[in-house]
């Protein structure tokens, strides 16, 4: 038994740990699925493999080789550490050895990964040199791999352009450094046979849509030089690898999904910190619990990798671990992208050799950099996507030894949802990588770049974009005096370098820079796009970044910056927005249980009226301030659902309100009488005068929104209503609350299905919405102008989304709503759990009891 096995036994027996382990899954060991080397494999490559102890290939590697040799495009979507790199290196090296002129382009999402892969290729080159020295025709045997990115020194660049046969780069360099200067790469493109796109699942959302267009430009340039390269992609496990690969490359792509690599016994634990405050549903911090579990692991000598979501959490976790373990666990290190490359190499090496026993890392260590495998991984909170969870967890495991992964859930609704529904983490991923390369803003930028690269011919296509649409965009560029039509071609004429003005990670060049005064200088800590700036970084807003809290001192929209100061406060701010949504064009609609669902183009106008300060966890309102800022407009795609009048009626009939009069404070009876007297015993809505029974007295702002009965029962907040009007008024509140809770939970859960951040989606609830034909409506929309495909996907999976939302809320342990289910806010700052649950029940086709 290994020390890990010992510890796992101990945990099982230790009550204080065991009761918080929500799930314990064990995946049995799996042998390798091996096949002999393919026939077409160059003997030198075979020799090198055998020297490394490899005498057969995993089946998926063999499949990749065969498909590649057969001229097909393919995507390797097998798990972490399954040998995908060999899967694409073998056929490509094979090709280069057989053809002295052939070249290949490898695209990686990060510089670190690029350099890691370069080392691997250089080893191949060294082995080839050794085996084939003394051979006469050495020409084809030089593969000359080289990295070409922003760090490549100027004096090395022209040599690389002339000589490199495998070029390693990243999308940004391809976009600004290579494609706009393609004539310097004429030979390289002329002989381009393969393009490798590694970690394809990263290319989703806005970034993916940009990269898809960069690929279109790449293909266009390659075609100019007569090449039609094959595409080989690798991906983490997502729901739609084939679809995403096809959208990125606009080519038919074969999917290799069966993993033939061996695996030892794997434990996967989901640990849910216990609730410490039942009213609010607050749990013990996931950081504290993760540190506790990691300390155990490290003290047992288990090599452990801890993943944190932010840099600040990384530093905190490292600090606490060092304090708790002292020196007994050996050296512990942090790891994140801010560290120098030399430091990171040392830590990676230390992990491989085993001298480094513990590392706390951000997701910088998630991507394929080779660290061997550790014995255990601990995930502080759900990493944000299932793919990332599997990649991080997948770092645990060395060949045939047993390994363990523990995900410690945080209070986020998604985390709690996954605690209830762990199958999403283990079975088929529901996550789809979505892109929209034809988003007009993104497309326009890239057509501009493409026009700079090569003149467009009249009637030319662009990727799969038909000539008529290309022509419409070219007309816009002409109107902007950027291109000029001469003969049958459009020439670039502006004295500008378009690629420089296009960021691959946003849709507009317009951002607001966030600046903090540090050491006497202004440092930019991040940026926010213009439309979001007013409500995210208005004056006196509390802004969180990388786990740190700041207060905004000034927002200057005209000059595109905001000044922030770091603060330590116990509250956060919430902007009070008035969101007005206009329908521009309805695209689809359908009747669903309890209402209808719609998809279409909308214009979202957001006006800030003020903001509130809310204390953490208790949501106590500490204060409110007015704001006056110009409204911002967002034209995008949205998905909305309306609640039918029948459903509203059913809601009304339910006795949800716990309106026991004793709960309204000791003086309630007196106050009631005073109010009825003031209102002359007349219903203020329908005018009915009291007959046999006293009318009701209704709180305009619900009682539970206040922190004390005195505040709630102020005369101005009270109004006399007859019973039926009272019921109606309550129902309005009910509906508002339910809508608000519905909006919250759907917004929080949606990212699980469309692989985005919560902030990539906007949500609004309107009790009488023109979009929903006058009915109460919840709208969810893409925060990206012109949409990026998220809303559309949500429209399609509406039923599943509603079902999962119902499950989440009904299983939540809180009393009346909490941030882990319907949000602690509600309409008036009060919980809305029963109302939301009722709505969800109806929407998912259930009956109300």
């Amino acid at each position: 038994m290994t020390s890990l096995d010992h510890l796992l036994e101990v945990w099982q027996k230790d009550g204080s740990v065991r009761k918080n382990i929500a799930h314990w899954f064990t995946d049995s060991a799996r042998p390798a699925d091996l096949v002999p080397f393919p026939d077409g494999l160059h003997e030198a490559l075979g020799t090198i493999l055998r020297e490394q102890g490899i005498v057969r290939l995993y089946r998926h590697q063999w499949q990749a080789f065969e498909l590649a040799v057969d001229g097909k495009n393919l995507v390797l979507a097998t798990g972490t550490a399954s040998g995908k790199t060999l899967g694409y290196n073998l056929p490509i090296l094979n090709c280069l050895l057989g053809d002295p002129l052939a070249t290949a382009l490898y695209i990686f999402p990060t510089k670190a990964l690029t350099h890691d892969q370069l080392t691997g290729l250089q080893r191949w080159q060294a082995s080839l040199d050794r085996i084939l020295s003394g051979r006469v025709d050495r020409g084809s045997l030089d593969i000359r791999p080289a990295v070409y990115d922003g760090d490549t020194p100027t004096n090395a660049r022209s040599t690389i352009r002339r000589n490199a046969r495998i070029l390693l780069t990243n999308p940004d360099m391809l976009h600004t450094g290579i494609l706009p200067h393609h004539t310097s790469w004429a030979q390289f493109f002329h002989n381009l046979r393969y393009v490798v796109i590694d970690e394809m699942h990263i290319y989703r959302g806005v970034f993916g849509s940009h990269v898809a267009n960069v690929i279109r430009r790449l293909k266009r340039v390659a075609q100019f030089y007569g090449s039609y390269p094959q595409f080989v992609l690798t991906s983490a496990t997502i729901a739609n690898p084939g679809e995403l690969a096809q959208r990125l490359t606009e080519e038919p792509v074969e999917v290799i999904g069966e993993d033939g690599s061996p695996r030892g016994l794997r434990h996967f634990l989901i640990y849910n910190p216990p609730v410490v405050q039942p009213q609010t549903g607050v749990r013990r911090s996931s950081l504290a619990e993760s540190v506790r579990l990691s300390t155990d692991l490290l003290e047992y000598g288990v090599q452990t990798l801890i993943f944190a979501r932010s840099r600040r959490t990384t530093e905190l976790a490292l600090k606490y671990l060092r304090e708790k373990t002292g020196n007994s666990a050996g050296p512990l290190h942090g790891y994140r992208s801010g560290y120098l490359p030399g430091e990171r190499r040392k830590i990676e090496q230390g992990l491989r050799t085993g001298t480094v026993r513990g590392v706390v890392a951000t997701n910088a260590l998630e991507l394929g950099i080779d660290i061997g495998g550790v014995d255990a991984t601990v995930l502080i909170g759900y990493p944000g996507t299932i793919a990332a969870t599997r990649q991080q967890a997948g770092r645990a495991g060395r060949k045939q030894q047993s390994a363990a992964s523990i995900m410690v859930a945080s209070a986020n609704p998604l985390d709690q949802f996954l605690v209830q529904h762990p199958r999403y983490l283990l079975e088929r991923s529901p996550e789809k990588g979505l892109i929209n390369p034809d988003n007009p803003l993104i497309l326009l930028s890239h057509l501009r770049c493409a026009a700079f690269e090569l003149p467009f011919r009249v009637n030319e296509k662009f990727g799969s974009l038909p000539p008529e649409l290309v022509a419409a965009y070219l007309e816009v560029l002409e109107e902007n005096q950027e291109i000029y039509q001469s003969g049958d071609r459009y020439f670039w004429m502006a004295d500008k370098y378009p690629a420089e003005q296009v960021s691959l990670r946003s849709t507009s060049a317009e951002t607001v820079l966030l600046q903090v005064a540090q050491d006497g200088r202004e440092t930019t800590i991040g940026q926010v796009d213009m439309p979001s700036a007013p409500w995210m970084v208005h004056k006196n807003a509390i802004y969180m970044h990388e786990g740190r809290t700041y207060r905004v001192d000034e927002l200057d929209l005209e000059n595109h910056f905001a000044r922030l100061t770091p603060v330590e406060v116990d509250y956060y701010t919430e902007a009070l927005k008035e969101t007005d949504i206009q329908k521009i064009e309805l695209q689809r609609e359908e009747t669903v249980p309890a209402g209808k669902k719609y998809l279409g183009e909308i214009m979202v106008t957001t006006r800030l009226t003020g903001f509130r300060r809310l204390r953490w966890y208790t949501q106590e309102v500490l204060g409110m301030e007015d704001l006056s800022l110009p409204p911002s407009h967002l034209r995008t795609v949205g998905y909305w659902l309306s609640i039918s009048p029948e459903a509203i009626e059913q809601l009304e009939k339910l006795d949800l309100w716990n309106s026991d009069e004793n709960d309204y404070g000791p003086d309630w009876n007196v106050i009631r009488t005073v109010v009825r007297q003031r209102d002359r015993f007349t219903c203020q809505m329908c005018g009915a005068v009291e007959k046999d029974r006293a009318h009701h007295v209704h709180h305009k702002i619900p009682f539970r929104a206040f922190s004390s009965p005195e505040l709630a029962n102020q005369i101005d907040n009270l109004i006399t209503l007859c019973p039926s009007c009272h019921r109606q008024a309550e129902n309005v509140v009910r509906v508002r609350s339910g809508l608000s809770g519905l909006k919250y939970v759907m917004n929080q859960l949606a990212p699980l299905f469309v692989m985005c951040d919560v902030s990539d989606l906007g949500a609004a609830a309107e009790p009488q919405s023109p979009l929903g034909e006058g009915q109460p409506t919840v709208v969810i929309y893409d925060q990206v102008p012109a949409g990026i495909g998220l809303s559309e996907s949500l429209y399609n999976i509406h039923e599943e989304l509603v079902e999962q939302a119902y499950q989440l809320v009904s299983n939540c342990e809180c009393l009346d709503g909490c941030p882990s289910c319907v949000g602690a806010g509600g309409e008036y700052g009060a919980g809305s759990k029963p109302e939301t649950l009722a709505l969800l029940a109806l929407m998912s086709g259930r009956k109300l009891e």
Partner: protein
Amino acid sequence: MAESLSDKLKSLGVQIGAKQLPERKPARPKGFPIQEVVPGRLVETRYGTTYACEASYPQGYRHGVVTMQAKCSMHTLCQWGQVPALAERDLSNLVFLDTETTGLAGGTGTLAFLIGLGYWNADGFHLVQLFLEEPSSEAAMIAALTETLSPFAGVVTFNGKTFDIPLLNSRHVINGFTPPFSALEHIDLLQLARRLWRNRLPSRALSSLEGEILGFQRTGEDIPGWMIPDLYYQYLTSRDARPLAGVFYHNAMDILSLAALFNHCAQMLEQPRTIPDPESLDLIAIARLYEDLGSWDQAVELYELALSQGLPRDFLVQSLMRIATIHKKHMQWDLAVPIWKKAAEYGLVEACLELAKHCEHRRRDYREALRWTQRAEECLPGSGLGIWGQREMVKDLARRRNRLVCKLERCGAEPDSELDVLE
């Protein structure tokens, strides 16, 4: 589409047809074609025709203060430019080249719409300017360019290594031609200008050199470089070639200045003493260049000439040290020592140090060596060396001093406590 793409993009926040863009003239009126504005002829190629404007300047033409020469000795200049193959050739084997383009950023989206070529032939200095009347006929222009370049062995440019030649290479590739420039030697005078005038002139831009070195003043017809790319676009949309006259003039003057500058620089490097009223700073720049080429004697001569004319203090001291270093390289101590002493008078730490080394290792005069070491230590604070340099030097001098004291004690002599009066 009910809504135009343009409107949709505008509602997404895109600026189209911004206010600051000049108003577009109506499409293709009969306007003022280039033929009426700048006289020239159509050149026939296999790929179509291109427009060429030509002019000739006689031998001995004065451009500013420089007389343009068909013959000049460019031996040293070619040595500096690392193009020895051209050294013995005739000036008529070189072509002077400058382009006007649609943008200054480079990349495949930039076109050269005017390519100026100048060369010496029997008639004098001949200037050919190829003009791109219509972007779609670029292939013809490139073909004409290749044709025109074929007889030459070398090309001379100003900043051509980073701009013009890569651009023209790119245009060749885009049009499907093989670029001819790899077969031509290339001299980029900007590189030389930087060597020669880095210290004396505020700018090494061609326009600045024109005024300062060539003494040439352009007429009001000239258009500043940054305005040029936009003028071509205006021409294309309006077909009014009149504003382009200034661009042709600008390009022609660029080429003339380039050729005149070439003559001047060739002479400066070949026979610096024949330049009337040479600037001392120029002389030492040339001397430095001579050092790189291994012409030590000539270098020393020039340094001495510059010194005799007078130099600002820093350059003076620097020049003294360079002369001394040359002598040191050739082991001519009796020539080096007096110069070091002179430099030491200016408080130069390095000079004192050299003298200390010389006294210690070659003359074995430890007392003298110690005196020079102490002098060096005294001069250190005012020396202008940075913190790290000073720190290292302090350590080094202290070591040296201690070593010398030991050596003196072993010889039985007392180290002096006062500094002798320096000779």
